[in-house]
């Protein structure tokens, strides 16, 4: 077991501080970054712009001073409109984006499923991409070999595992990514907008897998616009608005408040994982 530590948990003793049973602790997190409006910045365009004295670098304040803790075993839903800072928050917890100020403490092994992580090399096969993604995430070859069959079985891609990933459909892509993320036995699973991968049957299956992970006491941070999924899976919900926590509370309440804010009616479109 990867997640099992050598130290046994202090039996029955009350944890002295909250930090002990927090999987994720975010303190006064601020995330700002600069980005360009251009899709592909080039030297040529920069010269042209210098001539025109234009600036295309923009500072984005994605997260403005938020603090929260996630106890072990909690499924935390994160909702909010586009650009509220949800993905930035997950990326910072995953250690991909270091905080501008503040502090993040993560207890346990993190597995990310951020906008479908695997498959960065289209020329390589699904298998090679799984191995490379796993090695980059810090797993050893042995751990990957052990897990590989499970991942391939769960994704149900059959012979496609040996094909270059550029031949995959987006659904197959998503299935493989989901399979990798959930089969790495993470203590903490970060999921961004990926619950709706694959066909109806696979969705069902991923839902079940998520339930199983919840019962295994994994901590899950789940970003989704699919409010129904959030309501079914999450214990608690954080509603982010313009980089700040607009509300934190019990899933049903927060989702209702968010829906009132969005002014959407009980329609299937709003509920569905799109």
């Amino acid at each position, binding site marked *: 077991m990867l997640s099992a530590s050598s*130290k*046994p948990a202090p039996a029955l003793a009350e944890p002295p501080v909250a930090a002990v049973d927090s*999987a994720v602790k975010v303190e006064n997190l601020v995330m700002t970054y600069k980005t360009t409006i251009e899709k592909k*910045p080039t030297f040529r365009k920069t010269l042209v712009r210098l001539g025109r004295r234009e600036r295309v670098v923009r500072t984005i304040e994605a997260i403005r001073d938020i603090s929260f803790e996630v106890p072990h075993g909690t499924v935390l839903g994160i909702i909010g409109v586009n650009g509220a800072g949800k993905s930035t928050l997950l990326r910072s*917890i995953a250690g991909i*984006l270091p*905080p501008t100020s503040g502090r993040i403490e993560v207890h*346990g092994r993190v597995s990310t499923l951020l906008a479908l*992580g695997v498959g960065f090399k289209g020329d390589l096969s699904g298998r090679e991409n799984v191995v490379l993604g796993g090695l980059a995430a810090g797993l050893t070859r042995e751990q990957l070999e052990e897990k590989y069959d499970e991942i391939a079985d769960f994704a149900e891609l059959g012979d496609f595992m040996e094909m270059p990933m550029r031949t995959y459909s987006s659904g197959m892509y998503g299935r493989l990514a989901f399979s990798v993320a959930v089969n790495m036995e993470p203590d903490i699973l970060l999921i961004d907008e990926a619950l709706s991968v694959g066909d109806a049957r696979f969705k069902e299956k991923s839902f079940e897998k998520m339930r199983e992970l919840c019962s295994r006491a994994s901590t899950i941070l789940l970003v989704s616009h699919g409010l129904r999924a959030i309501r079914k899976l999450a214990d608690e919900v954080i509603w982010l608005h313009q980089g700040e926590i607009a509300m934190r509370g019990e899933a049903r309440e927060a989702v209702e408040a968010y829906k009132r804010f969005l002014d959407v009616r009980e329609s299937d479109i709003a509920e569905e994982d799109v």
Partner: protein
Amino acid sequence: MSTIAERGETSEYASEIQVYEPHKVGLPPLGTYLQQLWLRRDFAFELARSDLRSKHFNTVLGQVWLILNPLLLGLVYFALVEILGRRGGTIEGLAQLLLALFAFRLVSTSVSQGARSVVGGGRLVLNTAFPRTLLPLSAVLACFMIFLPTLGVYAIVHVAAGLPVTPQILWGVPIIAMMTVFAAGTAMLAGAVQVYFRDLTNFLRYMLRIWLYLSPVLYTAAMVPEKYKSFLYANPLYPPLTALHESVNLGQTPSARLLLLSLAWAAGTLVVGGLFFISREREFAVRL
């Protein structure tokens, strides 16, 4: 809510704790960084290997091409130099040219592949936390793997040319190592700059070509007219290429000055390129 509390109490999570804090002066703590880098060295090897595999270098014809391509290139340049009448047209001249050309290509392919490496890492950079230097370093590793078999080609020409086989040839090992380190530093620099200027690879092609002509590859340093000699020192590849020529081609002990210069260029470029890359890498995920 009670179920959550119960789960929290029964679990054991003390094993792995990561703390993410702002980087001081743009750099992450270097000790931890290098430790993470070393921990993931398998990734660099695997990426280099898979990359070569996807270019069909695992097939027989692919491997023949691996040797044929630089050899043909060498012959083209040899013919060119021959027409210009600069060299004696001897097989000895061919051996000198091939060695310098292969070594130069180790650096130039590393730089151009390194430039592509970060942007080519796209999804992985966006979604996984790992030291990004692994990407350019893996590119250099792949170029080194391609370089190795060309040494076999050179060895054959070396013997055919009747060049001396002496222990001095072993100087080639540290010299090539220094060139590889230099290549790694330059590859990291190029990889980081490419994120900000995606047309760098377009320019790079011409810059590398000019660099080739300015380096003692198609000629030896001794052939350079006196008035241009001082310019040679501005070229980071002049010291190692000339030291390589002295030791491997001529079987002499390379001059200490050239070795020290090579070492200085290699170490300096590695530090500058590496620190520049690491100081910028937190931005890559929002710039890709």
